Every structure is written in C-alpha cells, then in structure tokens.
C-alpha cells in the first residue's frame, strides 16, 4: 500500500516538474516579444534617445474605462515617438491606492531611474508632492489635479483635457436624436428627459454634465435632465441600478460620468438611448449607444516626453481640447443616430476648435432664472471655496482657463439633482 502511494506521489511530482519545464520554455520565448521590453531593444541608429517613464495607475486595463484609456495613450505615444527616434521605456505600477502606497510607488519609480513619473488619479497628488522635492531632476505629473501652480516646485506638473467639449458634442448627438423623436411624434416635447449617472458632485462631473446638457439643449430646446450620483467612480452594480432608476423615472436618454459599461446595457434593456465616456460602448449596447467621448492622453504624453527627451522644460499646467486633438469622439453609431448628425458634429467641432463657439456661453443658460454674471474660479487659501479670478467674461464662463482642473460647479436651470450633493 505504502509503495503504491509513494509511486503515485513520485509520478505526480514528475508530471508537475515536466509541466513546469514546458511552461518555462514558453515563458522565456514570450518575454522578449513583449511590447515594452526595457533596454536591450535599442535601435541600431545612434540617434535614438531613450526616456524612462513611470506610470502609476489607480486601476488596470481591465477596467475598460479610466485606466484603460491611459494605457491606450501610453501605447499610442510609444509608437508616435518611436517614429521620431525616441524610445520610451515604461515602468507601470497597477492598482495603486490613493494613500501612502502611492508615495511608495513614486519613490520606487524614482529610485529605478525614471526621468518622468505620471500619476493618473486625482487623489495621487498629495503623495506625489511628498516625493517630488527630493528628486528635483525628475519631472512629476499629476493628471486631473491642480497643485502645481502653487506648490513652489519646478518639477511638478498638472494636465487635463477639455473633456467638456466632447461632452457638448455628445449632447448634440443626444439632442438631435430626441428632437427627431419629437418631430416624428414618438414623444412629446416635454418627454425629452436625459438621465445622467454621475460619480460624485465634484467639479469635473458637474462641468461635464452641464456641458452635455447645453449641447443637447442647443438642438432640442425642450430638453431637461435628471442627475443621479452613485457615490463611486467605479461600481458596476450601482451605476447600472442608477441608470435603471433613471429609465423608470421616464428618462429616454442615458449618459454617464462613471467607469463602467453597465449604464449602457441598462439603457439598452430599457429600450432607451445612451452616450458613453472613456470608451466606445457600441459593442456592449449596439441598439442604444449613440456615441462616446474620451481624452486622448497620447497628445499630452507626446508633448511631455518629447520635452524630457530633449532636455527642455514644459508647461506646469497643461490643458487642451479639440484644438490639439486631446479630446476625441468615439465612432458614431450611424445606424441609430438622427439623420444629419455626422455633418452637424463636424460643423460644431470646427466651431469649438476655432474658438467661435463657447460651450459655457452665458446667454444659453440661466441660474435661478437669471443670467450668470459672475463666478470665481480658483481657491488660493486652501479652504475649498473659490476666492479669486473671475471666470465669467466675454459672454461665457471660461472653464479650465486659469488651471487645467475643472472648476465649474454652478447648478443651472433645467438640470435636476435627484440626490443633490452626494456624500
């Protein structure tokens, strides 16, 4: 009995050993083919410059949303810069929390010799700022945050894109669809109600859905909007439930500022329409999703990395939109979009690009029945109440003008906050 057992164990061990060897061969052949193998792969030409870049991500590419969009930017810029003779070596840290583990990640990448370190989440900035002073020769970037203009450090940067421009265009697509339904008699004018799934009542979110609403209103004057905050940047179930609740409350168009695709599928199940964010959502909801918008981070990455490669300095606070292609629309779902949408999109995009059209034109909306005439943009004393820089001038509210991070937090008429300030 004992012998048989021993034999079985031995056989098992041998099989395991063989399997391990087989796999190890496979593994070793795979690695050199990896898309971002460090060193070793330097071009033969003597011209090639190599920049070592660290990227710290709050999630990983599986989220198909926020972090995935950064990874797309990373891959695109690696290709673009390779053509310019700049070889980018990436070191990526996944699933880092907005706590001291972010400080450790910044330290680790700095010690590994990265020349540029990119932090992709808003909450990373305070931890990045603890490491940045000790490494003056390394450039640090905190995406979507805002401290670089007041932290007295030369090597810290902020970046964002005018995503509200993309929101405005997505709003136009939604508005045209609803206007078409009104014109066809499918709904009455007052049934044109948008439901918006928001993460938090945070400036970035408020700025986004207001732009979206104004876009819709510019082509469908009777539209109104309901906003439901879910209290999370990424919670697939909550987002889906919020979208479902909005559909039940009579919304016929769903949009979102949250990471998952569940609002799109909820809209499809309820037989209403949807516009997305961060990613093309047509593949998950082809009968509902009209269009989406996202930031193309490769534009900024190219600007920053090229500057580092050439030893030049670059802007501490960078914010561009359609003017530089930093905000892009995902493909339009021509099968269900209203007629003439593509033409209208091209026209308005050109107007935004040239500066002819202001998204937050104060003549297009009211606050408590009156036109918005004054609104401060920046908080300089740290109490989180804006106290300087008048954002309303030349007939428009100038979003992301004084700093890259959005600061539009006005509640305008026509948008109903279902659970007002969440949290």
């Amino acid at each position, binding site marked *: 009995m004992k012998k048989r057992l021993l034999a079985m164990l031995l056989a098992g061990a041998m099989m395991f050993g063989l399997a391990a060897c087989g796999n190890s061969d496979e593994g070793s052949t795979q690695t050199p083919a990896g898309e971002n193998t460090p060193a070793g792969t330097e071009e033969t030409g003597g011209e090639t410059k190599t920049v070592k870049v660290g990227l710290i991500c709050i999630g990983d590419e599986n989220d198909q949303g926020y972090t995935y969009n950064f990874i797309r930017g990373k891959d695109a810029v690696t290709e673009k810069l390779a053509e310019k003779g700049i070889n980018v070596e990436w070191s990526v840290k996944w699933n880092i*929390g907005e*706590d001291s583990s972010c400080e450790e990640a910044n*330290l680790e990448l700095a*010690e590994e010799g990265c020349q540029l370190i990119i932090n992709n989440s808003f909450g990373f900035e305070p931890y990045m700022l603890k490491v940045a002073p000790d490494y003056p020769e390394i450039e640090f970037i905190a995406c979507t945050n805002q401290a670089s203009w007041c932290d007295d450090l030369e090597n810290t940067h902020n970046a964002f894109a005018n995503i509200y421009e993309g929101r405005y265009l997505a709003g136009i697509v939604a508005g045209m669809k609803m206007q078409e339904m009104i014109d066809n008699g499918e709904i009455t004018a007052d049934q044109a109600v948008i439901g918006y799934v928001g993460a938090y009542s945070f400036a970035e979110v408020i700025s986004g859905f207001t732009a979206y609403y104004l876009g819709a209103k510019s082509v469908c004057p009777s539209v109104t909007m309901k906003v439901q905050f879910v209290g999370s940047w990424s919670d697939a179930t909550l987002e889906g439930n919020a979208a479902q609740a909005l559909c039940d409350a009579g919304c016929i168009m769903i949009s979102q500022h949250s990471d998952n695709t569940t609002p799109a599928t909820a809209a499809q199940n309820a037989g209403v329409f949807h516009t997305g964010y961060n990613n093309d959502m047509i593949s998950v909801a082809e009968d509902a999703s009209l269009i989406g918008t996202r930031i193309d981070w490769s534009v900024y990455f190219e600007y920053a990395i090229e500057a580092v490669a050439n030893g030049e300095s670059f802007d501490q606070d960078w914010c561009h939109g359609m003017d530089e292609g930093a905000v892009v629309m995902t493909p339009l779902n021509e099968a269900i979009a209203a007629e003439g949408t593509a033409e209208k999109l091209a026209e308005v995009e050109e107007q935004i690009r040239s500066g002819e059209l202001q998204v937050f034109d104060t003549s297009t909306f009211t606050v408590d029945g009156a036109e918005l005439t004054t609104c401060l943009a920046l908080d300089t004393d740290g109490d989180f109440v804006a106290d300087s820089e008048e954002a309303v001038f030349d007939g428009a509210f100038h979003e992301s003008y004084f700093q890259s991070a959005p600061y539009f937090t006005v509640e305008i008429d026509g948008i109903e906050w279902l659970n007002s300030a*969440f*949290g």
Partner: protein
Amino acid sequence: MHEQHSPLIRLAKRDAMPRGQVWAIRGASFVAAILISALIFLLMGHSPLEGYGTMLSGALGKPTAVRQTVRIAIPLLGTALAIAPCFKMRFWNIGAEGQITAGAVGASYFALFWADRLPVPVLLVVMALAGAIFGGLWALVPAFFKARWGTNETLFTLMMNYIMIGVVKWLQGGPWEGRPGSQIIPQFDSAAVLPKVLGVHCGWIIVLVMTVAVFIYMKYTKQGYEIAVIGESENTARYAGMSVGKIIMRTMFLSGAMAGLVGFIVASGADNTLHSGVAAGVGFTAITVAWLAQLNPFAMIAISMLLGVLEKGADTLQTRLEVPASISDIITGIFLFCMLGCEFFINYRLIFRGGHKEVAGK
C-alpha cells in the same frame, strides 16, 4: 479487517520535539518555499536567481529601499504586539483592522481641528492618546459582550471592522471632506505629522519601545500571568479567584489601545491624512506575524521585517521584471503558507496505514 477501519493517513499529536529538530523543520520549510517560488519564476520566464536577487536588492539594496521596507514593517510589528495578549488569552481578536482605523479617527480629529491651537509636542501626544483611547474603546465593545453574555468574539470583532471602515467613508465624503465632491480628507498640518528620525517617521521608535513593554508585561507582571492562566484554562483561573470577565475587558482595551496607537502612527507618520483604507489589511497580516513569532515580541521584529522585505521585494519585482502584481502576491503567499504550514508538522505527525510494525504485523 483492521486495514479497512484505519484511514490512509492518521494524525497524532507529537510529544515535545527537540529544539534542533524544530528548527530543522522550519529551515526545511523555508527552503521549500524558496524552491516552489523558484518554479513560479521559471514559469514566468525569469531565472530564480535573478528573481530573488531583484527582491533582495529592491528591499535592502539602498538606504531608501531599507527605509521603505522599515515603513512597511512598522505597523505590522505594532499590530502583532497589540493582538499578542489577546491570543495568549485565547481571545480571538481579529478586529485589529477596525481598532487601527478607530485610533486613526481619534488622532485625525485632533490633527484636523486642533493643529493651530496646541504646541507641536502636546498636539502629537494628544493625538497619540486619542488614538489609543479610541482604539481601546472600540475593542472594549466586543470584550464587554463576551464577558457579560459570552458572545462569539471572532465574529463580533470581525464585524466591528466593517462598521469603523464605514464610519471613515462617511467622514471622507461628509463632515471632514476637503475639496467638495473629492471624497478626500485634506492633508494634515505639518505640526500634526510625526517627525522623521533617520529618514523614517519616528513610529519605528514607538513600536520598538512597545516591543520591550509588551515583553515585560507578558512575562513579569501579575496581569501578564493572569492572561497566561486564562489562556491555559478559564476554569483554573476562576478557581484561583481571578475575575475572568474583568481581565478579558482589561486585556482587550489594552490590545485595542495599542492597535489604535498604530492607527495614529500610520495616519500621522505615513499617510498624513485619514482614509478608509488606513489599516490596509495590516490588522489581518499581523495575525500571521504574531503566530509565526509564537507570540514572542522579539521574534515579531524579525518576522515583520521579513514580511516587509517580501512585500517591498515583490514590489520591485513588479517594476523591474515586469511580472504582474499578482505574481508577487503569489510568492508572498507561498512563503507564508510554508512557514505557517511547518508549525503543523512540528505539532503533529502523520501515520500512514500499515506504516507501523505493530499494525502491519498484528
């Protein structure tokens, strides 16, 4: 006949094993962990030597790396010390996570609202005391229920974790929120930040002092003795005239207070703010540290440093060799599994069916 009744493998409790043999088993299990992890490296297409080299140099190769490793070890050591008296008493406190968080809340209150009203040393002492008291009171709740009504402390302390983490989430989005909508509590004033000694926040001095204090308390005081007696047998303790309920509550308060102090150290020294993940799983990992160290405070220093090296090393592994983060978790897991598993073979032995002469020969 006999063959059918006896199972294939039986377990038997071992008599006390000679010291040398115990350490031989521990050494062997460590070697086993190294060999199994080497297989993982091979599977990922890296040489095990390169892998271990990267881990070691990443964790201890440079002064900055050593500092990072120590920063990981500090809360682990502090929390292992905190739960040791409870475990000695066979009171299964798995609520250190919540007690750390409670302590961090207490300390943060003073850091956020009293920073400009108190001189620096006083502020830090008040924060530490508030952390200890909050953590202690949070631990006292399950202890009271256990002493009074005999409730199950394992479930109770576990559930208390989630309540406290929920409280912090509420604070983050509600009364203590910084920029509206951000869900982030502002960074503390520099007055409320633990000063650095040798490049690491001085929490390391606090936990080392705690180590000595816990050692003396457990070994040389009457209260420590009472804890040991209750751990051996509650009835003996009762027969000897000890008030078991009182001792349980006292020990739990002390344990929670130490965990709360760790919460203060993490919030003030490492994060400089309060957030719902302030305990970061330390409350659970510390259980492993305490067990591996056999509840010996000085052994805990070594074990928490070892875990620090593993974690920091795994981090560097991810950066340099570009292995997925989950691979580093797997390697840490293999080490813990082997090291904890070997204690089983020290306490028990396996008897194979027919393996014994008296059975086989009948």
